[in-house]
């Protein structure tokens, strides 16, 4: 049964001053999808995410998120940023980072965290296997552990959609596989969008891949060929054929 897409881009274009980043992008994401958004650096991946989250406004075209405008709907999107977006030496404990995801649910900015907030945070920390790290500060974590903390912070907002920007850029391959296994279990209840420049690895997890380099093309990951990838990156890339 066809349902309305939960995220829809119609002919969306965006440019930073003279530099065109997105050109008439059409994208529809259905509930329950695990979408991989891939493309070269500077191809517009982060810009597309920022448009989705309402942090940027498109110059032309329409964006519809869960039946509303991005700015209004951002609270239903769980965002997992890149490591570079915050200082990694900030003196903050894991539990504090996770709980901070509950801030937007309070009526007053001076409210303390309620028992409900703590219960949700605890449940999410168990799910992401970081309960034993609760009291540690983030500068004592490995890349994989920190990534789980950021995922947990996004999950406590109880989002319908989870959006991850380069979740495996700073971690080793073993931790990378663990993160994607975690995402696979999370996908049972929600839609997941993963941005990655590492195209080969994620294709065995995702249900659809969107290739972005100013323009956007969608593929079934099983049919993605070396030719498609070459078109996307405009030069030869190392592609290893693999079984699913």
């Amino acid at each position, binding site marked *: 049964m066809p349902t309305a897409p939960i995220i829809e881009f119609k002919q969306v274009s965006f440019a930073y001053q003279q530099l065109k980043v997105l050109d008439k992008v059409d994208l529809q994401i259905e509930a329950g999808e695990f979408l991989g958004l891939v493309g070269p650096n500077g191809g517009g991946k982060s810009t597309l995410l920022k448009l989705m989250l309402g*942090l940027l406004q498109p110059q032309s075209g329409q964006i519809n998120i869960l039946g509303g405008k991005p700015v209004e709907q951002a609270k239903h999107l769980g965002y997992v940023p890149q490591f570079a977006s915050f200082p990694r030496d900030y*003196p*903050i*404990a894991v539990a504090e980072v996770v709980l901070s995801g509950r801030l*937007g649910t309070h009526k007053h900015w001076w409210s*303390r965290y309620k028992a409900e907030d703590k219960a949700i945070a605890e449940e999410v920390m168990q799910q992401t296997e970081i309960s034993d790290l609760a009291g540690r500060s983030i500068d004592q974590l490995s890349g994989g552990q920190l990534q789980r903390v950021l995922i947990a*912070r996004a999950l406590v907002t109880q989002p319908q959609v989870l959006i991850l920007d380069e979740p495996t850029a700073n971690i080793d391959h073993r931790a990378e596989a663990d993160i994607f296994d975690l995402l696979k279990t999370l996908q049972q209840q929600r839609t997941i969008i993963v941005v990655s420049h590492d195209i080969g690895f994620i294709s065995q997890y995702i249900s659809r891949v969107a290739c972005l380099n100013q323009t956007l093309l969608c593929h079934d990951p099983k049919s993605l060929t070396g030719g498609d990838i070459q078109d996307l990156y405009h030069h030869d890339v190392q592609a290893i054929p693999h079984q699913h």
Partner: protein
Amino acid sequence: MNFLQDLWQYSFLQHAFIGGILAAIGCGIIGPYVVVKRISFMAGGIAHSLLGGMGISYFFWQDPAMGAIPTALILAIIIGLIHLYGRQQEDILIAAIWSMGMATGVIFISQTPGYAVDMMSYLFGNILFVETAQLYQMLGLDLVLLLVVALFYRPLQAVTFDPEFARLRGVPVTFFYLLLLCLVALTVVLLMPMVGLILVIALLALPAAIARLYVTTLKPMMLLATLLGLFFSSFGLYISHLWNLPTGACIILVAGLCYIFALGGRALWHYRI
């Protein structure tokens, strides 16, 4: 010990000692934010340009201290807006405000009729001449800082840690950022009698920076920075009394040397392992 006897005996030393406690609370609560958010340059801009407001207030009302709090708050908001919206020229703009503020202060003070105010005391502190009323003002500022930070600890932490995520959760990031700079401005006014405008950044940043070397979360950092601030101000007072030296400068040198030793000690510790 001679110092303790004198402290018992002379009310000016008692005032200075109490001033040290009150200053330590302020630099302990707000200093950690200045250090983790790396805004000591902005704090310096607020502190130094504050002389302009004090000069104007001295010229019109013969009372330099009167203009301190409103001027500090206005400067905090101007410098905060420069940071938020003037990114490309940020450092030059803040440097310009920094020195223009001081220049304004110098001009107004020079044009004030009557005897020339002792500018040195505003620039370098005058804790040995602090009056009871000033101590009450410091206490009031401490209470404001404690209250605001206790109420808004969580959003302030979220905004200083990851502003983009905080904004997506609906936290009014710009408001809390400007609020933080206003708190820094009030702390500058609070610390001014202790060490003066010129030296304020050191007392704001050094105790927190040392604390950061030993603790890993914000609340213990505030506690340790307060204790360190207390040690620096009382030990600086002791040295200044012992050798008859300017108090503010002694406090800052004690704090600075401790920071260098703490950094060096940590480097040696890591080298050993």
